């Protein structure tokens, strides 16, 4: 009887000299370098759609560990599944993961910015809150 455990599968690196970065990770880090430079020079923000990259098995983890973990992590759920925003160990580089309401990853981005827009309070929401706050104050005054 043979079981699944008897089938040995190992993933070899394209680049067999270990200790060096995988080719894909190397390329993405180069792009991030350019984007970070642009952020400092011109203030231009940018993002990479992780789902658009042809990643090798293992590349994803390698990329995450190459970027490291930073100081900030935030999470919100506005009713369509959670979104997790984590600052990577590389300052100015954020890892944004959008889940759907079944907790599967719906989209994933690496954002190069001082703070992802999705964390900022939005004008529409502020206006709604302001309106609500004013109504509350008015009600209290009329009492």
């Amino acid at each position: 009887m043979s079981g699944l455990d008897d089938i040995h599968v190992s993933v070899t690196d394209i680049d067999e000299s270990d200790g060096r970065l995988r080719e894909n990770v190397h390329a993405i880090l180069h792009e991030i370098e350019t984007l970070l430079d642009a952020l400092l020079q011109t203030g231009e923000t940018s993002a990479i759609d992780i789902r658009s990259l042809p990643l090798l098995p293992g590349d994803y983890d390698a990329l995450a560990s190459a970027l490291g973990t930073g100081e900030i992590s935030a999470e919100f759920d506005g009713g369509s599944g959670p979104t997790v925003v984590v600052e990577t160990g590389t300052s100015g580089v954020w890892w944004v993961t959008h889940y759907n309401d079944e907790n599967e990853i719906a989209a994933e981005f690496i954002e190069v910015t001082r703070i992802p827009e999705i964390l900022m309070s939005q004008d529409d929401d502020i206006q709604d809150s302001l309106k609500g706050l004013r109504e509350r104050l008015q009600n209290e005054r009329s009492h």
Partner: protein
Amino acid sequence: MKKQVTLGEQLRQRGISRRTFLKLCAVATSAMALPPAMIPRVAAALDKAVRPSVIWLSFQECTGCTESLTRSHAPTLESLIFDSISLDYHHTLQAASGTAAEAARDKAIKDFYGKYLLIVDGSIPTKDDGVYSTIAGRTNIDMLKEAADGAVAVVAVGTCASFGGIPYANPNPTGAVPVSELVTDKPIINVSGCPPIPVVITGVLAHYLTFGEIPALDSFGRPLAFFGESIHDRCYRRPFYDQGKFAKSFDDEGARSGWCLFELGCKGPTTHNACATKKWNGGVSFPIESGHPCIGCSEPNFWDGGGFYKALSTTTRPLANWTGAAVVTGAAVGAAAGVAAKRKRSAAKRAHHTVTADELKKKEEA
């Protein structure tokens, strides 16, 4: 008719914050395979978008395309139906059945005439007046023509609807044809694949919803955003191809090491689809990543391509006997020609008679 609410208004009424709306836009942008820089434009467009009515007709098909659609995770089918489109007829997914179902379709066609999006999966049999596939006593040809008349565009989902698929394969017993052979006066978007990647189906719908127009298409009518590049171009095993490292069987060292599957018949170089980047099952994997060569399911006539496990550079027909026969015939013809030439030579030799100088002299004198 009541005033149509935009998607932005609708979501706000349901208490969805702008932040969550932006998240949905980011997800939609990724699903449409657009660059992240497009997110603000997608948001602006979705804000003003109106839910389109969608009619889905299933013909000569296996329901694999619908199965695929129900596994879409970005956006999920539920959020697509409840938030973004109004799926007014789909005989597998809807609760109504029998006459009520047919009535729902008639009503949707009437109410949204000239404005609804028609989705078709499956090919349409045309032999013997289309009798090989009927719904409620009506042939597929009849139903397609009626529904296409009032549609703003037709989305052919799956290889059967796009290119004929397995019913169209040799010898095509039902005379099956793709949608494009029956509908010629409407824009057609071919979302091929057997089945298509779920997020590609929803991505195309999202594109129509967002921009109110059909996306840029390739020469086969497929959206360029998903079908613009070959599997081979985006394959993570491509470096192995370049290095000449190939798996020779499904259980050798090369297969275990994840080398290129070209020799095992991979059709990646001639196949255009988004499998290598969008992947399947929520982005988990795709056939090549799971160790199986691409069979080219999003290309026309892939069933008749000469075998899933034969390398692309090989012939599609057995040639060993053929070449053997050619050599034998060649030898026979060559032998005949050789013998004939030899005979000619000996005949010439026989006809040749020698002349002496004396004889010539005599001739001259005479």
